[in-house]
């Protein structure tokens, strides 16, 4: 079923490669990774996509209960690329109650709970001074974002593991189509926390070197922090608007932490997205893959892409720049895709040295100048949760 496109009039990304879109594009152009080395306890190391602490903004007094490292990261990110100012204009146009907020995250502000337990290691039964709903609730960042932006429309925290902030686009599209809002802020936020780093170490998929998506010697993921935001509307606001042309949402129904071995779930997801966009495989100029750099992910995703698009589909993973930003990965890669479309190049698949010869996709190791009309991005998460988004460049 073909859907009417929705429109994306503003977006901003803060991640390890930059605070805001200008720094981000510069890093992409320079093929520069934002990953930095991180020592593990008690021994070992990994690489992490860190957002610089000094960039964290202050929280207004009236929102002081929400104040923590995650909300300061959000506040800082929302001030980039005039995003905050553009929301103000949207509020004047639509009214604050007609703007929705859908935020994807896995851990929300759990890093604050980690800090408390590490600060008071012998006081398991301490009484927290701030209620959970403001502090470390899964929903706290969504409520903070709504209040910081002064928007009061529909909302949801979407937490479907690494597909969370891809699914916010699909959810916003449905709310817009249903007439429940005229605009929607969609977001993905993941802060630095030990839970993700040591959790993935426990699963044996955390790389001790910079992650190398699609490489023959790829050996796992790096985690990253990010905060990305986009403003979606039902109607176009300017000729510069990007469009969300289509989306797919499927499950593998197979395993909690491993993708379906043949990538069936993500294959169906891409076919759904193409169908909803009313596009053919040949219409897609570039695929920003999930490309997590685990042995299993890249081979299953390659198989799925090849079955849908044929051998030689133009694909890169941008996780070598930012790390795997988890609940923020969907919007991180959606924005990187839109920036690539705007700038007219396919970002290099950095850190990889030699592409795995088993893989059939065409994976450029250096930037490739190309006019990109339609781009597709995949997200795959725990629980076998898949999401695919297709974006169209401004007309």
């Amino acid at each position, binding site marked *: 079923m073909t859907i009417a496109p929705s429109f994306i009039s503003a977006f901003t990304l803060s991640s390890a490669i930059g605070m805001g879109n200008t720094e981000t594009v510069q890093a992409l152009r320079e093929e520069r990774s934002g990953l930095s080395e991180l020592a593990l306890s008690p021994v070992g190391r990994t690489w992490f996509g860190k957002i610089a602490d000094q960039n964290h903004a202050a929280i207004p007094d009236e929102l002081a209960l929400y104040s923590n490292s995650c909300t300061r990261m959000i506040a800082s990110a929302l001030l980039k690329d005039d995003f905050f100012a553009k929301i103000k204009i949207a509020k004047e146009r639509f009214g604050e109650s007609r703007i929705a907020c859908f935020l994807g995250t896995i851990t929300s502000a759990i890093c604050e709970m980690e800090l408390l337990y590490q600060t008071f290691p012998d006081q398991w039964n301490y009484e927290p001074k701030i209620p959970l709903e403001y502090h470390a609730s899964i*929903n706290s960042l969504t409520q903070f974002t709504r209040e910081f932006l002064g928007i009061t429309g529909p909302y949801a925290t979407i937490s479907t593991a690494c597909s969370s902030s891809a699914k916010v686009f699909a959810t916003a599209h449905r709310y817009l189509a249903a007439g429940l809002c005229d605009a929607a802020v969609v977001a993905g936020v993941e802060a630095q926390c030990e839970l993700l780093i040591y959790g993935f170490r426990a699963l044996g998929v955390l790389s001790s070197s910079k992650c190398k998506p699609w490489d023959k010697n790829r050996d796992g993921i790096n985690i990253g922090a990010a905060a990305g935001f986009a403003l979606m509307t039902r109607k176009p606001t300017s000729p510069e608007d990007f469009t969300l042309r289509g989306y797919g949402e499927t499950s593998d129904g197979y395993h909690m932490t491993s993708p379906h071995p043949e990538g069936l779930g993500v294959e169906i997801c891409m076919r759904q997205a193409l169908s909803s966009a009313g596009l053919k495989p040949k219409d897609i100029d570039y695929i920003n893959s999930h490309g997590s750099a685990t042995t299993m992910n890249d081979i299953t995703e390659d198989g799925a892409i090849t079955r849908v698009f044929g051998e030689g589909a133009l694909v890169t993973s941008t996780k070598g720049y930012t790390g795997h930003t988890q609940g923020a990965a969907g919007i991180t890669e959606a924005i990187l895709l839109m920036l690539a479309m705007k700038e007219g190049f396919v970002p290099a698949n950095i850190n990889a040295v030699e592409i795995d010869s088993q893989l059939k996709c065409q994976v450029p190791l250096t930037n490739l100048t190309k006019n990109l009309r339609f781009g597709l991005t995949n997200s795959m998460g725990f629980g076998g949760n898949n999401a695919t988004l297709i974006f169209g460049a401004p007309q």
Partner: protein
Amino acid sequence: MTSIWVESVSVFGPGLLGWPHASEVLGDPRRYDPQKTPPIESRFLSPNNRRRTSPHMQIAIQAADYALRDTGFDETSIDLILTSSEEDLDIAEDDIQALVQPEKEISPQKFQNVILNAAAGHLGIFMKNTSGSTTVSGTGNCFSVGLLQAYTTILATKGRALLVAYDAPSSMPYSEKDRPFFAVGMVLSHSHSPSILGELSLTLGERKELTVMEHPALETMRATTPSATGLPLLLVLAKKQAGVVELYYSKELSLTVALCF
């Protein structure tokens, strides 16, 4: 707004032992006994699957099972919408306590089960479901947020979705100590069918006075258990009388649910 249809319901919580029992009790609250607690059992919860999941997930799986049971719907292709106030906070605390130790060794199972969509992930695997699966939260308003998520999904797909709202007690310092196990499952559809239980129309608008439960114990559960905030809707369904229910959605908004038969 466009209507959707309720095709089946399940509910498990203190004094509510599945929809056949709960619909009778809600229709005649004098029979309500909160001391009766339902055992968690489901055809999806084999011994192995019980080991893979926590009670927080199992109550959701039970509600999903009973909402689908005897309906004949294709379980492999129904969209799943799950909603809970929080993830399993006991698992979160176990993980965080492990991180305090110098070794920082987290149990792989407790890592994969700390995510909010752990219940949905396991459920989808047990059902061999390959459709879209979305887990949402709105903390105390998770039922309203989940209902609206299901509504918009059904309008888009013109199909059918299973909504499960669930909560479980937690011993974590942060958590609400007296929260019971509670789960409600609803199969909702875009299309009318002979077996429907009711027709729902949803409107999101300015804050209105909340609909509350008359029975004190049921009202306490509604007021303190986020997934049970839909109890007034279940009451109207049980009585099979047309009515309007006002659900809390946010500081600024109410979700008005009109039910007719």
